């Protein structure tokens, strides 16, 4: 351990904006009381991909629609269930103070005001919520913030296809070869019920790293976010996460300290 920081896994940021008030309060407590705190730069990328981009999609669908019915259909048809539920949650949020869906022009403006504010504030809150951002593998994509022009956002996360991208993820992973050998054995020992698709991806990629055939391209790194965040947390005191399934089998072979955020116990039944 080189630093005394507690690393927050990406899921803690999601819990902080969850719909469950007990989960929100407990996550908020962790952010305010756990010091010093840190994240991997990769968390910024994960948050952008999992939340901010969906907000951008919701914005696009709402702004192009001539009615709520149309917005609802558009979000479900091309944004998926998650984006439609975002629309519903936004309506619920606005309805607390009384929300009039008519005329749609006005309602749409009001929706867009809140979506724009949420895109900006949620992304901004990531780095400003912790004391330090560690970026040992120099993730270029994590340093690309949402951009906005007068009327639209640019929220894409480009694929990493060029050697010109100064990302050192390959070197970063290579330095943990011994730990990765132990990790493969640990994952192999799991039953099917204990394992997961991400753990299998991690094992496959760990195998290629050990045998020097690993070449990280496109979105490879995004399949092994838990591995990258777990390894990054080794420089700190511990990793705080609710993701027991992936991190419990990994933390011992990779030699990082794990603290579990008790999500299941907190959730309203």
């Amino acid at each position, binding site marked *: 351990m*080189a630093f005394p920081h507690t690393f927050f896994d990406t899921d803690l940021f*999601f819990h902080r*904006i*969850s*719909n*469950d008030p007990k989960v929100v309060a407990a996550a908020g407590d962790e952010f305010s009381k756990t010091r010093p705190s840190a994240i991997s*730069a990769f968390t*910024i990328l994960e948050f952008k991909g999992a*939340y901010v981009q969906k*907000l951008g999609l919701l914005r696009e669908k709402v702004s192009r629609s001539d*009615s*709520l019915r149309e917005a609802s259909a558009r979000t479900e048809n091309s944004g998926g269930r*998650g984006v439609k*539920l*975002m629309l519903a*949650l*936004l*309506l*619920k*949020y606005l*309805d*607390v*103070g009384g*929300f*009039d*869906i*008519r*005329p*749609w022009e006005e309602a749409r*403006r*009001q929706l*867009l*005001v*809140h979506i*724009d*504010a*949420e895109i*900006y*504030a*949620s992304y*901004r*809150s990531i*780095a400003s919520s912790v004391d*330090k*951002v560690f*970026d040992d593998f*120099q993730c270029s994509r*994590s*340093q690309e*913030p*949402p*951009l*906005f*022009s*007068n*009327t*639209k*956002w*640019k929220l894409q996360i480009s694929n990493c296809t060029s050697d010109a991208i100064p990302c050192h993820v390959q070197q970063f992973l290579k330095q943990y070869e011994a730990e990765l050998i132990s990790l493969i054995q640990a994952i192999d020992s799991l039953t099917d019920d204990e394992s997961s698709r991400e753990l299998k991806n991690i094992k496959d990629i760990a195998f290629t790293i050990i045998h020097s055939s690993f070449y990280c391209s496109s979105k490879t790194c995004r399949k092994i976010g838990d591995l990258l965040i777990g390894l990054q947390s080794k*420089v700190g005191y511990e990793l705080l996460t609710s993701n027991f399934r992936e991190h419990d089998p990994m933390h011992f072979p990779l030699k990082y300290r794990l603290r579990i955020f008790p999500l299941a116990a907190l959730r309203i039944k």
Partner: protein
Amino acid sequence: MSTIENISEHDLIMPVLEQPVKTDDKVVNIDDYRSKSDTVNANRIFQHGAGILRAKHNRVITSDDVFQSVSEASQYLLDETFQLIVEVNDSELDIVERSNLFDMWKDNLRILSRNANHFLVSHNIILGSLINSTKKKDLNNFKVEVLKAFADATNALRKPRLQSQEVEPLMAQLSQLSCIPSTGLLNDGLSGLEEMNLDSIILKFIKDEDAK
């Protein structure tokens, strides 16, 4: 090992994609606004704004009426909204009066969110953040510095074209002084029942929309 001590907020936050149209910067900051020659102008705006407010209070004028002539009415409402938060900051007024003005300012923010049809993303960011920061809160929840930050942000909304690089310092000031809560639109881990409830919210509003 390299660390980013500062993937700083400044680096993370939103450079400009395009240069907005340059406009006359007739917007003043709160201190200037309250001084010398602006007094006459402030009174004029406030008197007009008070008229709109009284009408609004009596439910004589609807937001549609206010925005018959969009740019002019929007500008009046924006000026009035700014004047309200300026008055909230006036320590010579009694607390009840300031509290009422604060509530009126919040009402105006909501009306702006529905009616200011010239607003750009940059306006939306500031306006939405003001609304979220003050939701379910009253004057007592905020210190003087926060109220002044609200005034600065409200003042910025008066610019017809608000440049994206102007947003960051205002948002930094707001978030430093006052928590800007998330709208919380994440929906992972919802139960089937919760999802059904959310579906019914959309259906309810669609029904309202169809009931013309």
